[in-house]
């Protein structure tokens, strides 16, 4: 994940007045493509990372393609079919040569070879015979399957974006599909890995409580009220902050990287002294922008309390404490990183005193504090966490001049180092951030999103295991987990926390495993923290997986972004190979989103990075339920049937050809005319399955959503199991045998089936030829194969009717037309009037009907039998829903008559809409493209946050 730009290391030497000044250059000095410059007039720049080093070029190579489980099983089916093809070709070739051993079959007097054929080498002949058989049977490998699947996926994916239930009114966001390849994977998810902040929660931070010097405070109406006291001070009286409180609030309002934006663009660009302008602005015109919502919430809270952060310009910061301006010189910013989990600023106040403010996770700061109410604060932090608040600890350090010089030197040296800059910076940072004086802690609330509990419950009922992965501390995580229904009160919560050594960790894991075994009645939940997880993963992966699998909910806290991906990969590569889904909203979830089988981005406040790297993007977590339970179900059943039906219909298609070889001396004579061979997959049988695979619904969406258990019916790729595959293949072969031998027997050895067609002309009994025989088989086949799909269709819209009956009609019309003309450009006129002759024979009709029915009724019987004897829950819910729902009759659906709208008027309505849209969209397309382009350019430069604490991270734009 680490891209070279985030490790950018450079040094600049500026010669000023004959003096060389060396300045460090880091990622923060990089302007990424499309970044916009603000608050400055001009810069000097050098282009770096160009050409093949550009982000786009680098990412292009390492982008891995995700393939769905359906696609994988499709490929293994293909290999089986390839085997069948080779087997048939080899068998035919061998039998051909066995026959040809005798001259009377090889070259009877009535059928001599040409000189050329006689003289060609036997090996060459053998090879060409084998290849000819391969060509003859190649239709068993359904090439058109891939075309249809792609089409289905592409067209089908529109339904996600169109779904009103996945549309978020407030943010005007609809669901977005980035990869249509994975639609069906949505129906196969077994594990959901979800981020917490911004995914389960709104990522809207509100400052609630703080702890200053061992006393707890709440914020009430813009005032800090100590615990146990009520807000009884009269309005308007100026609240006074005592020393510690003031220092704490100042620290909060200074230790951050928040930017200010003024409505008036001329705020800071006047050049000279920026501070002269600031007085003119009321706070209404000022807005804070932060890469981390926590920081923003804290700075805003500080402003409400009375310490307003008013201006920052390069290396000065200004705050107004109850109207009194105070200027600080910003000496250093020790940026946030995921390892340190804290950030610091070093400031010089007006009196020249240098002070370091630091804030970060309590585990990252408390060990380095030397003074302050450490124990009490720790207690308060835990209390905050139990309430589900996000906690940060604030500390400071006053430097003596000597100390500062030392620190300054080290920091500068580290920053300008060209080699091992990161390591040296880490060293310098930890050298600086020590001997801290604890000031207090903050508690920020992040509200849960709407309907998170219901969604998680639904997912659990659907047999999906939900893992929450978060960077928060474990108390916060557990309390949020409990409040969002991820953990139940009744759950037995197991903990794997703060393991320091391998052995300890293994011991704890074994203990947990034993507890689970003893107590298998109730559900278990597991809490793991990042450190223990990495220990568990290093040595005891198996044991850990075992424990995890028997827990119905797992919560991983204190996770680093890469650890999230690691957990996903661990599950993904476990022996059962479950299908995983990762959902998150921030840049720190990107690795996990890319790692999981299905990556879902939440369009939240954390920017669009997750969205762009995801396969699907939705606006709210609650939409996940519909996306999986309804859309996933639909796409899966559709594609599963699509794939198997394709194999089936091609087996039906080509097996009679194979059988025919036994009757024509394996001479590679085709049974069907070449036009029929070509058009079978393209015209005659393509549309019904495509329409089926776009519109099929086994169960009504509402039922699917209200009964998540139906999701279990399709889990583990059950519709594409080897058994069902075998069923369809065997069915295909059986049907092919019935087609061929049915026609063979009914037409008779003596081709007496050819009736006289007394209706048309008197007393003629004419002869059938091989082409008529082939056409009879083909006709029966087209009808049967189409009707077989009709039997499997549960959702008959007018389009299904149209393409099903239309395909059969088209076949008849086409055949009449094709056989009705002597085609001048065709070499042979084999098919001339063959079809008409076939249809004019009464017994041919009888034969067609009987063969079609013979093929289909065992299948109907099987369906009915299984439905009654072993109904799946899907089938149960079908029969349940049908009486309640208002269902249409066959005829009604044919003309889609509903609510007084006839099919034709509806169709006209659609057409109108479509044409109207075309006109309307022509300009709005252009504008949206512009917007998007602009969006791209702006998004390219971005600073991302890790949620746990305020961070600075340069992150990147991968996909374009």
């Amino acid at each position, binding site marked *: 994940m680490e891209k070279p730009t985030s490790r950018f290391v450079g040094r600049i030497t500026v010669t000023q007045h004959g003096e060389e000044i060396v300045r460090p250059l880091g990622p923060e000095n990089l302007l990424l493509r499309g970044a916009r410059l603000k608050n400055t007039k001009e810069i000097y720049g050098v282009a770096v990372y160009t050409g093949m080093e550009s982000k786009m070029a680098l990412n292009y190579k390492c982008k891995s393609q995700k393939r769905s489980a359906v696609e994988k099983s499709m490929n293994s089916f293909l290999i089986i079919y390839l085997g069948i093809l080779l087997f048939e070709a080899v068998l035919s070739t061998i039998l051909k040569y066995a026959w040809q051993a005798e001259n009377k079959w090889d070259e009877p007097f009535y059928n001599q070879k040409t000189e050329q054929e006689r003289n060609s080498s036997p090996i060459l002949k053998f090879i060409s015979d084998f290849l000819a058989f391969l060509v003859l049977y190649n239709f068993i490998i359904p090439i058109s399957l891939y075309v249809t699947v792609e089409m289905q996926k592409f067209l089908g994916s529109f339904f996600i974006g169109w779904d009103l239930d996945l549309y978020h009114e407030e943010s005007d966001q609809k669901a977005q599909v980035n990869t249509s390849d994975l639609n069906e994977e949505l129906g196969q998810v077994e594990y959901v890995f979800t981020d917490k902040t911004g995914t389960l929660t709104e990522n809207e931070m509100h400052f609630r409580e703080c702890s200053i010097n061992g006393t707890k405070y709440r914020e009430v109406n813009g005032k800090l009220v100590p615990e146990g006291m009520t807000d009884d001070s009269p309005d308007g009286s100026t609240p006074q902050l005592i020393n510690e409180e003031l220092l704490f609030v100042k620290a909060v309002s200074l230790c951050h990287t928040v930017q200010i934006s003024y409505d008036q663009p001329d705020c800071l660009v006047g050049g000279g002294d920026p501070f002269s302008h600031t007085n003119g602005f009321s706070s209404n015109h000022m807005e804070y922008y932060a890469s981390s919502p926590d920081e923003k919430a804290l700075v805003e809270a500080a402003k409400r309390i009375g310490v307003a952060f008013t201006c920052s310009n390069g290396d000065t910061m200004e705050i107004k404490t109850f109207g009194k301006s105070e200027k600080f010189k910003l000496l250093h910013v020790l940026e946030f990183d995921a390892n340190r989990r804290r950030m610091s600023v070093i400031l010089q106040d007006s009196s020249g005193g240098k002070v370091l403010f630091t804030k970060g996770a309590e585990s990252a700061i408390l060990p380095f504090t030397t003074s302050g109410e450490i124990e009490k604060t720790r207690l308060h932090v835990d209390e905050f966490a139990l309430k589900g608040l996000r906690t940060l600890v604030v500390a400071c350090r006053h430097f003596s001049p000597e100390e500062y010089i030392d620190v300054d030197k080290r920091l500068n040296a580290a920053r300008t180092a060209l080699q091992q800059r990161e390591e040296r910076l880490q060293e310098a940072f930890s050298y600086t951030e020590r001997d801290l004086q604890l000031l207090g802690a903050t508690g920020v609330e992040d509200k849960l999103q709407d309907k998170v509990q219901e969604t998680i419950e639904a997912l659990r009922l659907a047999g999906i295991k939900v893992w929450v992965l978060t960077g928060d501390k474990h108390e916060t995580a557990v309390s949020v987990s409990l409040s969002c229904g991820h953990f139940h009160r009744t759950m037995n919560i197991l903990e794997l926390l703060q393991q320091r050594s391998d052995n300890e960790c293994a011991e704890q894991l074994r203990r947990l495993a034993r507890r689970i075994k003893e107590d298998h009645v109730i559900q278990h939940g597991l809490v793991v923290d990042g450190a223990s997880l990495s220990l568990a993963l290093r040595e005891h992966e198996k044991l850990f997986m075992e424990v995890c699998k028997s827990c119905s909910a797992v919560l991983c806290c204190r996770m680093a972004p890469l650890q999230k991906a690691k957990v996903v990969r661990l599950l993904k590569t476990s022996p059962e190979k479950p299908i995983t889904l990762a959902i998150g909203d921030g840049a720190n979830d990107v690795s996990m989103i890319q790692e999981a089988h299905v990556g879902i981005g939440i369009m939240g406040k954390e920017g669009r990075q997750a969205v762009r790297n995801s396969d699907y993007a939705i606006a709210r977590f609650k939409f996940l339920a519909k996306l999986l339970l309804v859309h996933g179900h639909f796409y899966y059943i559709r594609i599963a049937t699509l794939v198997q039906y394709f194999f089936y219909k091609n087996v039906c298609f080509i097996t009679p050809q194979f059988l025919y070889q036994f009757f*024509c001396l394996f001479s590679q004579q085709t049974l069907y005319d070449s036009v029929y061979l070509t058009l079978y997959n393209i015209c005659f049988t393509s549309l019904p399955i495509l329409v089926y695979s776009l519109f099929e619904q086994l169960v009504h969406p509402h039922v699917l959503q209200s009964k998540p258990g139906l999701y279990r019916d399709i889990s583990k790729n059950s519709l594409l199991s080897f058994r069902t595959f075998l069923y369809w293949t065997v069915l295909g072969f059986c049907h092919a045998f019935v087609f061929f031998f049915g026609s063979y*027997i009914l037409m*008779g050895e003596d081709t007496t089936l050819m009736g006289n067609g007394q209706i048309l002309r008197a007393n003629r009994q004419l*002869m059938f*030829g091989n082409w008529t025989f*082939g056409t009879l088989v083909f006709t029966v086949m087209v009808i049967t194969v189409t009707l077989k799909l009709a039997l499997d269709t549960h959702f008959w819209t007018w389009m299904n009717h149209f393409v099903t009956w239309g395909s059969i009609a088209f076949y008849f019309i086409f055949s009449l037309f094709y056989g009705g003309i002597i085609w001048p450009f065709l070499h042979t006129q*084999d098919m001339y009037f063959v079809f008409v002759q076939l249809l004019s024979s009464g017994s041919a009709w*009888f034969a067609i009907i009987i063969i079609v029915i013979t093929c289909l009724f065992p299948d109907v019987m099987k369906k009915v039998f299984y439905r009654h004897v072993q109904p799946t829950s899907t089938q149960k819910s079908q029969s349940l829903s049908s009486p309640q729902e208002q269902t249409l009759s066959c005829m009604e659906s044919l003309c889609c008559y509903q609510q007084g709208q006839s099919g034709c008027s509806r169709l006209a309505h659609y057409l109108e809409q479509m044409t109207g849209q075309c006109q309307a969209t022509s300009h709005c397309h252009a504008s949206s493209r512009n917007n998007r382009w602009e969006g791209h350019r702006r998004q390219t430069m*971005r600073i991302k946050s890790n949620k746990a604490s305020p961070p600075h991270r340069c992150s990147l734009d991968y996909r374009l």
Partner: protein
Amino acid sequence: MMATSYSAKDEDGHITVSGPGAGTLRSKKPENTAFKQQRLPAWQPILTAGTVLPAFFIIGLIFIPIGIGLYVTSNNIKEFEIDYTGVDMSSPCFNCSQNYSWNSTRPCTCTIPFYLETPYESNVFMYYGLSNFYQNHRRYVKSRDDSQLNGDVGSLQKPSKECEPYAYHENRPVAPCGAIANSMFNDTLELFYNNPNGTKLQIPLTSTGIAWWTDKHVKFRNPGNDPNLTAAFQGTTKPVNWRRPVYELDSDPENNGFINEDFIVWMRTAALPTFRKLYRIIQKKNSMVPTLPRGNYTLEVVYNYPVRRFEGRKRVILSTISWMGGKNPFLGIAYMTVGSVCFLLGVVLLIIHHKYGNRNNSADISN
């Protein structure tokens, strides 16, 4: 530091257009149409015992009578078959069959007596049947030139390559070219009724109306507009195995050349190695006398066509036909079988319906 001072808000995609266009910003809200919301009105049939039950009974009830009808019809068709290959020493054609050569100058004739036990009332169709003759061999099937047969003069003089090695003979184009034409069946079959009074009565055989109308009138055409076929076929040579050139197949100009019906029938290649082809029709003369009364008959064969080399058989079949075609009991049997199986399954379904039908509806879905 400058680079970081862009506003984070831009990321969210809330790009509000400032200026006059801001108010008209289109919502991304999807349209609430039945199509886009996958709510198209639809018929949702469910295959349960209750719904398919009537279908099974109906199929059963319809198919069984149809099957009986077909079977009876097929059984009423009278068919008589004579194998005249002459494999046995005792067979009248044994001597002729020993001749393996196709072009023996002296025609070999044999006479086969037979007895019809029942009179044939309606028109009788006379077929010749061949077995083990692979008309469906790929090399054979494609060995023809349809444009030559369609009267194309260019193709007449320059037959298609597909006809090889039957395209040219002695440097002259073969008409009709190809293996199919070359191997045309050339036995002559004649039928005599042995009157009980001792006279031998030749039965008139109609040799027209045995090919598809479209074949005779559209697909096959003599070359040129010259009614004199000898001139039209000038410059071509007859197929090697033929005794006579194509323009001497029949004396009737409407049945000569490429539009000779025996030729057209032969050119329609059979699907299977055992096949029969229509040879002649014995028309019913008047309604009083059966077409072929009960009695003794003689079949006179001019034995030209050698089949013993590929273990072939030659037969003559006399058959009446019905509205459903020739004798084929299988269609009737198939209908009866499927009909009764459907009926039986219907009964099974009825049981299932009663036993499981109620349980099914009350069952709830376990989560």
